[in-house]
């Protein structure tokens, strides 16, 4: 799988290259500025891009803007955005086109190599990988009288993991229950939230986020 990597801090870029290579990714390019990233994404047609939000020369959200522009040029281009901080505003912008294949993670998540690589693979496959911080913010700002209040604590846990983009199998493994139990929870959640049941991983995350987005 071919990866384009954009990160301006040399140590982190180097670390990411080595980590991804250790997990059998092919690094098509590892760049450090916005214009280089835009060029690499247009010319190299990677399977997935791993991009830092803040890049030179402007040191603002240049990485994010490049990623969004590349996805407009090539809809569905898988992009995993890394950041020192996560903002719902940016998460929404990434999810806005509804094409899937996006991820938005804190840079700390690279500490857990396997989970991080899992997230890259999920995004490359057209799924999503949302940072738990984003999901927690979304869940916590909902008041009790909304449909989310009707969820049991266990169902909320499942919803959180589901919103991060994890599959039923992964959720089952994390919560140490059977996959059947998770399937039951998810159908309960969909029923309580009034969402049509779908077995498409990507769709269900978008549906969950779309629901959480309501009432703004």
């Amino acid at each position, binding site marked *: 799988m071919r990866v384009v990597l954009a990160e301006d801090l040399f140590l982190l870029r180097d670390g990411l290259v080595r980590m991804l290579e250790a997990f059998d990714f092919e690094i098509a390019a590892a760049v450090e500025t916005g214009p280089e990233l835009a060029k690499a994404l247009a010319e190299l047609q990677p399977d997935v891009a791993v991009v830092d*939000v*803040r890049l030179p020369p402007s040191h*603002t*959200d240049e990485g994010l803007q490049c990623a969004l522009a590349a996805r407009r040029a090539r809809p569905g281009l898988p992009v995993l955005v890394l*950041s*020192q*901080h996560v*903002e*719902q*505003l940016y998460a*929404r912008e990434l999810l806005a086109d509804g094409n899937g294949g996006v991820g938005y993670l804190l840079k*700390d998540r690279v*500490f857990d190599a396997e989970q991080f690589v899992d997230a890259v693979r999920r995004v490359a496959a057209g799924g999503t990988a949302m940072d738990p911080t984003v999901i927690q*913010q979304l869940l*916590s*700002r909902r*008041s009790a009288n909304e449909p989310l209040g009707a969820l049991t604590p266990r169902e909320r846990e499942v919803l959180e993991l589901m919103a991060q983009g994890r599959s039923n199998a992964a959720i089952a493994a994390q919560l140490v229950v059977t996959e059947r139990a998770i399937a039951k929870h998810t159908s309960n959640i969909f029923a309580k939230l009034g969402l049509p049941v779908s077995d498409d991983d990507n769709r269900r995350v978008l549906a969950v986020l779309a629901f959480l987005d309501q*009432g*703004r």
Partner: protein
Amino acid sequence: MKTSRVRESLLAGARGLYMTVISLVGSITLFVLSVVSIALIVIGIGVFTTPVVLTAVRKYATLHRLHAGEWADVRIPVPYRQDPARPARGPAGQVERCTRMLKDPATWRDLEWLLVNMTFGAILAILPPALILYMAYGWVLACGVWKPIYDAGGGEWFAFIHVTSQSTAFAAAALGSAFFALSLYVNPLLLRAHFQLSRTLLAPTATMRERELALRVDRLEETRHDAVDSSAAELRRIERDLHDGAQARLVAMGMDLGTIEAIVEKDPAKAKEMIAKARQNSGEALTELRDLVRGIHPPVLAERGLGDAVRALALRLPVATDVDVDVAGRAEAPVESAAYFAVSEILTNAVKYAQADRIWVDVHHADGMLRIAVTDNGRGGASIGSGSGLSGIERRLGTFDGILAVSSPVGGPTMVTMEIPCELS
């Protein structure tokens, strides 16, 4: 050219007539009221009536300034001392307000002006309409009205002409017409003279301007002091947070790594446990650093500017918040930062104390002024008092010559508005 001159003259006449009436009625009434009110200070009543009357005098003078600018292009600056940002309340506040107004030299010049305006001012103002109306009177006499007056024994004088016959009546009419012709040239000048006379007393004198500058210097010194104080406090907070937080965690991590190095071969299980702990420590150090950064200069603010930073802030609130931004460009970083933290604090207040379930934030920039309004539908009752968070915001905005206003009747809604002069880039 000709018709416009006639129109101007007639207009000046009408305005002069209006100013005469206003000058006489307004000035006499207000002068009498002021004198009585100031005299009553001795028995206490005046303390309460004087500020009211003097405020009316100021409004009246300001109206006069307005007419002067609009009708005669005479600009009269306002000399009054600024009210303090946080006036005292209750009877003590009344006394203070009364004393403050009486100490203001502009007050006494206002009273002098009332005297001048009801005499010389009124005379100057009556001339333009008189020059016009006198012609009408002359022609009325010439049309035969002179006769009954003369027959009744009235020796009517039209200016310097003694009207005793039709011919002298015609002479009066001719003189009236001459006055009208004169009015074409002098009417606008007379009206202007009326306002210029006012300006000599209503405009600030050189010493008043100097004092105004001195006051401004005082205010700048005060806000600079506040700015230095708060940035020093901010640095101390950052230093303490780093010292107690991230730094301590990194030290602990280093120690753990040292221990791990020593025991990794003897006790791999224990080493693994400690590695997990070290990783957790590094994660927490990062979280603390992240919070610290957010407190100094929020990343979204740095990356996107005020508009999106406020939007991002709203997304994190537990209360539904509508954000409307109309700012084409970026303000200077210190202004953006001050505005952002002010909004942040006001929103926090709204969520914490106001029990609001809806908040509206409106951010826009026009005419070199950044205006932000935060409205909530909560229970109201917020005020800029000593010790409230709002006065802290007010002081910080003061560094940028910004101002803060709060409207929050008990029962709500609360509306907090800020204005900061700044240019966008």
